Structures are given as C-alpha cells and as structure tokens.
C-alpha cells in the first residue's frame, strides 16, 4: 500500500482503538436497581448468649485462688434467631450460627432487599439465646423509604440493641 494510504489507514485504526477504549470506559451505563426502588440492608454481627452457672462456695474453695471466678461459662455461643417483617408479612427469617471452630465467635448476617419506595411498617425481632423462648430484642417502626434510599437494620448494644439507620 502506498505510504499516504497506509498513514490514513493507521490513523483510522488508532482512532477506532481510541473510540473502543473511550466507549467501554464509561458505556453502556448500568443501573443496579430501578428508579423507584429503595434498599433495606439487614446486617448484624453479634455474639450469641450463653448460659452461665454460679459456682457454689465449696466449688470455689477447691479452685486455686487465682481461678476463683464466680461464674462458670461454656465457651460456645448460642445460635441467634432473627425475623424481619414488612407490613406484618415475613420478609426474611434466619438462624445465625456462631463462627469459629469452637462456635465461640460472632454470628453474622448480611442481606440486601429491594423494595418499592413508600411507607412500610418494618419489624425486626431477635433472640440471641435460644435457650429462652420468644424474642428478647424487638424493633418496630413505620418507615418511609424514598427511591434509592438505603435503610440499614443493625444491632448495637450501645445503641439500645436493634436500630434502623
């Protein structure tokens, strides 16, 4: 091919290379959720309860002085039961298991739910020690979710237990 034609060809091909890069560097655009949808993120990391027994004075006396802890607690933690309801209907229910080989770590959950924007009655119930019946933590509230809003459902004992953010 004659040189000028080759130069033109090269310019066209390098232009196509640049156009390819430029296009796929930002396009096509991507929408993870539709415009009228909000997200509820349920995420918790919590140590389950455990049943401790009070040692009797006789038992304490048999122990070396430096090991006389008044309570004897098992290493393992309880499973945690969690229920999430939206407008009174069950949305998610799970039993979280403690992590670790000895089941002594935190129990965790992370779930993302897409819901239409609007007002809902949101309820979360949690039992962190399954020896006891029912739920020892409950949080209920009417929430208004705007499009694209992210509502986090979390647990923090310092914030009074279950909370919405």
């Amino acid at each position, binding site marked *: *091919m004659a040189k000028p034609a*080759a130069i033109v*060809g*090269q310019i066209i*091909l*390098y*232009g196509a*290379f*640049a156009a*390819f*890069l*430029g296009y*796929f*560097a*930002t*396009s*096509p*655009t*991507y*929408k*993870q*959720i539709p*415009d009228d*949808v*909000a*997200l509820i*993120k349920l*995420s918790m*990391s919590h140590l389950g309860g455990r049943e401790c027994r009070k040692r009797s004075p006789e038992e304490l006396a048999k122990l070396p002085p430096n090991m006389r802890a008044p309570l004897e607690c098992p290493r393992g933690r309880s499973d945690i039961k969690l229920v999430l309801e939206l407008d009174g209907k069950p949305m998610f229910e799970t039993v979280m298991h403690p*992590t*670790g080989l000895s089941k002594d*770590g*935190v129990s*965790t*959950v*992370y779930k*993302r739910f897409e819901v239409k924007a609007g007002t809902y009655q949101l309820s979360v119930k949690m039992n962190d020690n399954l020896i006891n019946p029912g739920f020892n933590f409950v949080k209920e509230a009417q929430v208004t979710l705007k499009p*694209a*809003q*992210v509502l*986090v459902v*979390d647990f923090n004992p310092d914030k009074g237990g279950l909370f919405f*953010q």
Partner: protein
Amino acid sequence: MSLHAALRGNAQILLERSENSLDALFGGADNPLRHLGALGLYFLWILVATGLYLYTVLDTSVEGVYTSIGYLSREQWYLGGILRSLHRYASDAFVLVMMLHLAREWAYGRYHGFRLYSWVTGVPLIWLVYISGIGGYWIVWDRLAQFSAIATTELLDWLPFFTEPTARNFLAPDSVNDRLFTVLVFIHIGVPLMLILGLWAHVNRISRVDYLPSRRVMLATLASFLALALIKPALSDAPANLALAPAELRLDWFFLFIHPLTDVTSPAAVWALLFGATILLFALPFLPHLKAQPIAVVDAANCNGCSRCHADCPYEAVTMAVHPGKRGHKIAIVDPDLCAGCGICAGSCPSSTPFRSQEKLVTGIDMPQQPVDVMRRQLETQLARLGTQPSGTTKLVVFGCDKGADVRGLAAADTAAISLLCTGMLPPSFVEYALRGGADGIVVTGCRDGGCDFRLGMQWTQERLAHQREPHLRSLVPQDRLRLVYASRSESRQLAAAIDEFRTQLETQTAISNRPPAYSRRTPHHG
C-alpha cells in the same frame, strides 16, 4: 480433532489473517497485534508514571480523596486532569492487550513444552491486574467507587474466609474512615509492584525481551490516549453517599464488568467462572499435545566455543562452560528444560558450513531430527535432480520453515524445496552452496516479521543474509539471486506468487549478476 483443537485452529486462522491484514498498513515492526506483550509493558510504564503524580496530590481523608482528585479534573485539567485520563485509558488498554496477548498465545499453541513456565507465570498476573484496577476505582470515592466497593465486598463475602461480612465496612456513611483510603492506596501501589515482579518472572526465560514496542507504536498509542483525555476526560461521578444507592453508573466495562455479571447470575456462578477459568488456564499446558521436539545436541569435538549459539538462542537455553577437551576454549551447554528445538543454534554455528569436505558433516551444535549433514545431503540430492533439467531452465532452491507457509508443495522439476524446523536454522553458507551447485536463484522464506514462531528466527536469518550478523553470507553471493519472502502458514499462495515473480525476474532481467563460481565437493553425494 477435539473441540479444543478445532477452536484453537479457527482462532489461529482468524488472528493470522488479522495480523497479516494489519501488516499491510503497519508493517511487521509497527503492527500492534504482533507486539502485544511489549505494548502491555509500555502501558504499564504510563500507569506508573501518571500514578506517581496522582499519588503526590492525593489527600487520603474521606472527603479529601474525592476533592483532591476532582480538583485535578476541574482546576488543573491541563496537567493533573490529563494525567488522570491517561492513567484511566492506559489501564483499560492494558486489560485489552493483556487479553489479546493471552488469546494470541493460546491460539498459536504457545502454552506448553518449553513455554510452560511463561504461560504459568502469566496466569496469576491477570488476577493482580484486576485487583489493582478495581481497587483503583475505589480510591476516587465517588458513586461508582461506592457501587464497586459494595459489590466487590458482597462478592468476597460469599467465600468462607471472613468472620464478619466485609460489606459491613460500607453500610452507612459513618462506616468509612480515613484509614480505609490509606490502606487502599497501599494496595494500589503494592499490587502493581507485585505485578512488575511477576512480569519479570514471566519473561525471565526468554532472551532479548521485547520490552517496548517501536517508537511509532508508542507515539501513536500515546496520541490516542491524549486525544481521549481531551475529548472525553476521566471524571468522577457524584461523591459517594452510603445512605443512597447509586443510580445510573458510567461503568468501566474493562474492569468492572464483574459487578453486573454477579447481578445477573450469582456470586457462586461468578466465583465458579473465575476459579474455573484460572484452573483451566493452568491445566491447559498439561492437556495431551504433540511430542516435544528433540533438543539441540552439542558435539564437543566440533564446538570451538565461539558463543554464537549462546548469542542467538531466543530462549537462553545455551550457556557457555569450560571445554573439557580443549584448554582455554569454551563449550556450549544446552539446558533441556529451556530448549525449544528450533535449530537456530545450528544455523548460527560456523561449523555448519556444507563446504567442509567431511563425508559426514558434523557440526558444533545440531538438531537430531534434522541434522545439518542431512540438510546437505538433501540439498545435494536436489541440486543433482535440478542439474538434469534442460539448459535454459531457471532452477530455484526454496528454503522454508515448518511453521511458516508450507514449501513442500512448491517442489517441481525446476524447483527444489527444503523445509527446516525454523528458517533461523539455515546456515547462510547453504545459500552460497546451492548457487555454486547449480541453482539460479535461492528463495528463503519464513514467518512474517514479528510473527516468527521461535521469536527471532527470521530476524537472525535476514541479518545473516544481509551481512549484519555472524555467520554472514559471503559477499561473493549476489543479492539479486536471493529473495527473502515473509509468509505465514496461511500464505502459501502468496509465497508461490512471490517465487513466480522472482523466477520471471531472473529470466527476463539482463542485469542479473553471474552466479558465483561452480563448486563441487571432493566426495559428492549427488544422486
């Protein structure tokens, strides 16, 4: 034929045609498709250089990362903004050439045997590129960064490695702190450093590495990036806000395609795809393949320790050691793990000359599957056959390459065709020998410029025939009776046309030089 072989064969044909087409515009030396690895390295140096500047101006606080990078694009668009765009587009181009390089080496079957090491060391680099690239997007901390950070951590959390979900780090606006960006910058610098180390290992077993493409290619690709930087500069999205899900995202599909893929499938499917593809790439060299070529063998009595084979070996398979039998001399040693069996060393050996009078030609370094002695016998037989043609017939000898256009089909009453393991195994003295033995013209053909299956075979051949490299063609051989033709394996027709043209030229041009004086060995093997 297996499905894999059929796929690979078709991919090879497609690539060969694309490369050959681009040769017409760019020429072999400037054809980007023939220098993908070198292009990748060049893009990496652009990334390092632009990244250094971006690092110096980056404020690693939560608000600072967004404003400091945004400042570059808005107020300092003429320097920082352009460098940022170059960083973005060079990284995308790096992914593009990396994937093409991978596909090309696979299509040409360059992943097993002596190439096993280069292939296996290349696979983990893909992971490093993606870790570095995806992490780089987070540093800007805009909506896209927010989306990618959450999507990546949600994907990671599917693996049973973490006690707590890592996605909890991006739950709410107060979940993110300044330390995150210090860690991200550390990763974004550390992983590319590992990548550079990995690249060093990747090319460690080849000599004369193509570290950079030609100046034209470098300038042209840089100009492409600069044009993009001006026309479509890399800009941040709105600042990250973890209280809101990002709306429409301008996704970089070269790196972030993995997030939509996870959304339309599942984390399990994506990990199965990623780990499956990685295992497949690692396993590919261990699938059944043709038996490896026998390796070069050194003959101590005929090796004079000149080191030419050491200098010419494309895979650093030949080293020099103290000669056990000749005091003060060296001897070539062949590493069986590195030897490709290409025969380029035999072509470089000064003892490979057919003019030696020994009945059995034994050279310093030779190929058991096609010894130089067999080449000489073959040539002498062919010359004897050509000698029986009526006078006035233009007799040609064609030396070709098993990996390039097939020359065997060109053999005719007036044409002798000898196919070699690689054209680089042709000692130039064979050209003179053929002309002095009665041939009117010599055609030497092999893979296209930049497309040699053994990397340097055609380059060394061209330099040897042009008196630029030892062992060189003697000057008594007229260059107008010699034709070098670059033809890949799919270009047999083009080769035949080039030979016809050469024959016509020899027959019609009056100014053709005389053949060098006739020569015949004392103990010929004609017939």
